[in-house]
């Protein structure tokens, strides 16, 4: 080996180790939690949470660290962690996950001030979690493949053999579960199982709502069950001109038009309960709700009265959801069992 080459390597190696050491040091400070750092377990979209957390930190000076996952995953993680959970706040997209933690006695009562900021019927019946935003279950369809007049009045019609291959669903997406829970609440378990078995025969299966709406938009399938949110995001991403799908609202109190509630709760075991309650108050404040409504990142309905949703959305008061409160939508346990029995999970 020539000495010159050797010294070149030594310099490079030295540089690399220096960069490595710096980077190594960079991942460790995470462990040294400063005083009053709020730990947020989130099943909400990361982009939405990023926006809120940055603004909350600016307003209050309280630092927030976020752990993100799918709603039911994070709820079950909190269950597994039990009293040792480092979480202060749980913020998620669907009420059943919150109901699960409420039933297990893991949640602290939400402050009255926060609860009073939104219509009471969306909140936890026991006052253990706070409703923050709402989404509508909808049908995305591709007008090139099916006319609006051919769409069925009810989501339950998709079990009919006539729909074979023409409907897409994402049974492992947490957002599909409340729609099934609505069918259970309105029609009973047996009818729900029959419906799911019909869906299993007819439907194209995808991993998540994003994939369903993309498939409908490109014409791979005529219709797909999603939350309104995903279609709005797709349209923003692609632009209206390049979007080939439309939304259809079931209405008339059909379970397919169920409204999903995004909510937040403070854990009983929260290390910083006061800051946690403050975060909940912030979530339903005028400032936070307006921030989300105008963000073009989140396409949910703000629940605080007087805050206008994104103009892309159908006005909230025109929706015709089934009259089901969160308690009747349950905690997902029945629904998961039914989905497994039907072969969808």
């Amino acid at each position, binding site marked *: 080996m020539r000495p010159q080459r050797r010294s070149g390597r030594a310099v*490079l*190696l030295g540089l*690399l180790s220096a*960069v*490595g*050491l*710096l*980077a*190594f*040091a*960079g*991942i*460790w400070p*995470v*462990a040294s939690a400063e005083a009053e750092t709020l*730990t947020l377990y989130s099943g909400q*979209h*990361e*982009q939405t949470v*990023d*926006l809120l957390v*940055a603004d909350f930190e600016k307003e209050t000076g309280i630092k927030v*660290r976020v*752990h*993100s*996952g*799918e709603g*039911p*995953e*994070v*709820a*079950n993680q909190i269950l*597994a962690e039990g009293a*040792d959970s*480092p979480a202060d706040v749980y913020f998620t997209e669907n009420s059943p996950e919150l109901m699960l933690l409420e039933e297990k006695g893991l949640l602290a009562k939400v402050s009255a001030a926060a609860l009073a900021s939104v219509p009471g019927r969306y909140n936890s019946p026991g006052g253990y979690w706070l409703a923050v935003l709402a989404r509508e279950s909808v049908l995305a369809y591709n007008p090139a493949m099916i006319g609006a007049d051919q769409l069925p009045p009810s989501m339950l019609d998709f079990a009919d053999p006539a729909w074979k291959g023409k409907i897409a669903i994402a049974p*492992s997406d*947490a957002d599909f579960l409340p729609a099934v829970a609505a069918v259970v609440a309105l029609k009973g378990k047996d009818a729900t199982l029959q419906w799911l078995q019909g869906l*299993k025969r007819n439907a194209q*299966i*995808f*991993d*998540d709502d*994003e*994939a369903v709406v*993309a*498939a409908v*938009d*490109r014409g*791979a399938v005529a219709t797909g069950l999603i939350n309104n949110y995903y279609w709005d*995001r797709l349209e*923003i*991403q*692609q*632009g209206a001109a390049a979007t080939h799908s439309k939304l259809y609202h079931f209405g008339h109190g059909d379970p397919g038009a169920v409204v999903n509630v995004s909510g937040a709760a403070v854990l009983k075991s929260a290390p910083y309960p006061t800051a946690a309650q403050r975060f909940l108050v912030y979530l339903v404040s005028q400032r936070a709700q307006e921030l989300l409504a105008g963000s073009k*990142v989140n396409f949910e309905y703000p629940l605080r009265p007087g805050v206008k949703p994104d103009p892309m959305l159908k006005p909230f008061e025109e929706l015709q959801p089934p009259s089901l409160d969160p308690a009747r939508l349950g905690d997902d346990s029945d629904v*998961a069992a039914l989905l*497994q029995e039907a*072969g*969808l*999970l």
Partner: protein
Amino acid sequence: MSDRVASPRLASPSLASPSLASPSLARRLFGSRPRRPPAALVAGAGLGVVLVLMPLAYTAFQAFGVGLAPAAHLLFRPLVGELLVHTLAIVVATTLCSAVIGTLAAWFIERTDLPGRHVWSVLAVVPLAIPAFITSYAWVSLAPMFQGFGGALLVVTSAYYPLIYLPVAAALRGMDPALEETARTLGCGPWDRFFRVALPQLRPALFGGMLLVALDVLAEFGAFGLLGYRTFTTEIYAEYRTSFNGPGASLLAGVLILLCLLCLAGELKVRGGASYGRIGRGTRRRPARYALGQATLPVLVGFFMLTAVTLGVPLSVIGYWLGQESATAISPAQVSFGLLASATVASLGFGVASAVLTTLLALPLGFLAVRYRGTLITLLERSAYLAQGMPGIVIALAIVSLAIHALHPLYQSALLLVVAYAILFLPLALVSVRAALGQAQPSLEESARALGLNWARVARRVTLPLAAPGLGAAAAMVFVSVVGELTTTLLLVPIGTRTLATQIWADTSTLAFAAAAPYAALLVSISLASTWLLTFLFGASNVLEST
């Protein structure tokens, strides 16, 4: 170029067999050499092995804990049958396609007068440095029609065919031309010579490569997740998303481990004991190259297309999205210099920490394997290689549960993720560490001892300098693998930490393609640059010789 990333792994299934010659138990355990390995060394080696076996044992424990009736109910539901079909279909199809493409590419590059051979030989291995989930992001964002089986086959084949190309090209280089020439004098045409003479000699390399492809496809998560193709791995993740560490996930993990072990066993059986080594002494001539003649143009077009599909499209799509910036990105909030910097620092930090820990864990194992013999040592070494047959998601899932229930202080710590990486990539490091230590002759150490140096000084002044390039290569390979790792990272990353890989996943899985582009570009650059540095610093021969 990036050949070192893959080739060392090829050596792992073909380890030296144990020597069982000596009669007494002590000698059988510690070998026929008079020296016993120091207890500290065995303990050090044992640590790595215990770490590797822990997730495996815990998964088995959890799966058995489910109970027979619920287990049967969970395992014999319709979905599991579907997953089995999906998984086997993609594994078989990808392995076959990769075998054909990899062998053809190797043959044209090594055995014909193809113009630009050197360039093609580099381009054929570069795809290894691009994580499959990034390739899949590129295709999906290009046109959603790539979702499903066809797209999955396209993406994973272009990501993994180099695993076949590398060993087959090496075997072709090492082949004695005499056999083919003899066949020719006996009247065999070119096709006959390929199928009846060359191909049988390629068998060990080909099967070794196919095993790696099959294992990698079984473990692949990100690519299939984005492509909407459901396999055991994506479904374990789906179970995790709906139930955290529920019984369903651990049962599916058990099935996946069985599939991996079947692959390992199948490869051992097929490879058999056949030997294709040269017996003749003397210098071997370089094999003759066939003139392509009329076929030159179509073959060149083929190579252009291969490169366009495996590298051109993914890199240009990332470039395209980079240019789109926030105009069409859903989430302009996601891309900021601060986030980019912190994600890069986290990725680099985890890479470096894991490289150091993994190499340290591999050192005593490699030293034992090189310097001592015996059943115990063979057992230790073989067990360490078991991790190669365990998908990242299985390891991660077991570690999460273990940490929650038994190792709570480590739960959600950066250290735990680093340990998980070390378990995952121990086999990768072990192959080069073993080869590196093998290059340090024991006689040199003995001379140093005879000259009065104690063992610590011998290690510092003789063994380590001799083995350094190989150890460096081992660490660098672990680094590259960790930076591009997705599954384990997703499950174990500490709260508040984001790496390049998790950021790309968060953005792509919510269709925010433009927002993902800067992270993807950074990750690919780091991966390509460190692979290039690896070649520059440690030389091609260091690790390749171990295969």
